[in-house]
């Protein structure tokens, strides 16, 4: 990944504006995933795209000041969240990965269906964002090291 080192105003404005839309879309995908096309995987990939835009506009060090995640940790948290949600079945005497859902009345939103599939999907989302970012940043680092040598 080649970071943009020029001060191209058009590019900058365009990428930053786009990243807002992409981030919003990725959240939409994540929450739509239960009953419609979408889900944690596609949402995660879209988020990773948005983050990649930010890394493209600024260089890595500047971007890291704003995006303060250690991405491998994100993978770990996501995995534990997903697997842990599945393990509810252990305590409820159901099969592993059984899904539970119910309808709740929440002020302002009205009747909402809450499912355990959501934290599961959220876990997938974290894993995908983490993995995609680790891959991109590691490959980008290779180039940096080569330039320094």
């Amino acid at each position, binding site marked *: 990944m080649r970071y943009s080192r020029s001060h191209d105003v058009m590019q900058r404005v365009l990428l930053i504006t786009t990243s807002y839309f992409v981030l919003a879309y990725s959240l939409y995908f994540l929450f739509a995933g239960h009953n419609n096309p979408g889900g944690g995987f596609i949402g995660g990939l879209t988020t990773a795209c948005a983050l990649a835009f930010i890394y493209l506009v600024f260089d890595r060090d500047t971007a890291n000041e704003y995006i303060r995640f250690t991405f491998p940790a994100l993978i*770990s948290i996501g995995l534990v969240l997903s697997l842990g949600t599945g393990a509810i079945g252990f305590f409820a005497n159901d099969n592993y990965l059984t899904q539970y859902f119910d309808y709740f009345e929440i002020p302002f939103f009205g009747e909402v269906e809450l499912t355990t599939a959501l934290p599961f999907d959220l876990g997938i989302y974290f894993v995908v964002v983490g993995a995609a970012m680790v891959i991109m940043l590691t490959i980008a680092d290779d180039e940096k090291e080569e330039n320094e040598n």
Partner: protein
Amino acid sequence: MSNIIVLPILIPVLAGSLLILLVKKHRIQRFMSGLSAIATLVASLFLAVYIYTNDGIAALELGTWPAPFGIVMVADLLSVTVVVVTSLVGVCCLFFAFRTMHRERERYYFHPLFFFLITGVNGAALTGDLFNLFVFFEVMLLSSYALIVIGGTKFQLRESFKYTIINIFASMLFLAGIAYLYGITGTLNMAHIAERLDGLDEAGALPVVAIVFFIVFAMKGALFPLYFWLPRAYYGAPIAITALFGGLLTKVGVYAIIRTYTLIFTQDVAFTHHFLILLIAGFTMLLGVLGAVSSFDLKKILAYHIISQLGYIVIGIGLFTPLAMAGTIFYYFHHIFVKTSLLLFSGVVERITGTTDLKKTGGILKTHPSLAWLFLIPALSIAGIPPLSGFFGKFALVLESLQEASYLIAFVAMFVGLLTLFSMLKIFINAFWGEQKHTNKQAQTPIMDVLAPVLPLVFLTIIIGVGAQWSFGFSMEIAEQLLDPSIYIDSVLKE
């Protein structure tokens, strides 16, 4: 209650994910990972006892989706035994790694990757559908790609590149094979496939699919002629990792062959089993052992022996009779114990002398007698000397191939046994007898702490050999269960 089927997969994967967070904290990481490995072993033993006392088979429908539609985990006698042995070998290799692995290497995610590898192997053993078999293969292989380059020497990078390429190619073929099978049967659940193919008069395209699958598993299991990547790829990695790979990874390929060739591809036994597998088994044994005879490096000899022993394991599937299958099962577990312990011992030799080149070693018997005698036990066992475990596996396989009038394969098996003995003696004579070639300072190297993790494996090769009445009876039970696919089908589809 059948939720415990998923525990041997769940514990390592949870441990692996948590260990990612602890990768910089040396002590806590080791403590956690030791604890989780033991927890996995306990859970596997628990599962094995549960399965053994309850009909010998159980299936778990994940997410309560009914069988042919949802994902099923199936634990029968073979898969729970594989899971127990995997977890045990995992514990031994992990504790060996604690004593031998460089701290620098551990920092590159050794522990998380180790647990993901165990997850993959256990998952492949317990899964009930072909696509998840593929997924767990990938989990296992992806972590093995990373483990095999830990340390990042030039040699490792070069050899692991070949390893990665050939395995990615095999995975691609695997997917193609699954697609063929799905095209023919319209399902991926192994029990459902078996049910739909049952009583088919004409084999049609199935032998082709069978061969595609065989090529895939033969690549992963290092059978002739696709074994060339193994000796050098395994040579470069740190010894605890090599031992883990040598003990487990190739066996998963063989496990998949056993599973698919007893459950699914039984239409044209005369061609796929009696001809193809036996032919491949013969060549694998012969060429593997010739490679071992021609090399003069401890680790390399042992790596070539993995190949030739895999040939033995496959014979039983080729003969496809209860006794031969029992021989295969017995040999399978014998081989895991013996090969892992031999490879770990070669790591101890390397620790003492700093080399595994047999020309530069000698006289270890005088300075470290305990290592020498302990090495001799699995060495004799692998060569097939009674009363150790190797003898009974070989005996059953040779006996059955004579009874089935496959004289050639029986001859090759005995000839290869002879050459195995020869190369084990070559190791013993050159490394342990003779003049002491390591310095006196090296002779003071303490080794008790690294020998201890290997002891359970050595002990087991003696136990299953001396107690062959019991252990072979158990193998017979597994074999009979395998050769009657209706048990598997009924338990999964609940009919």
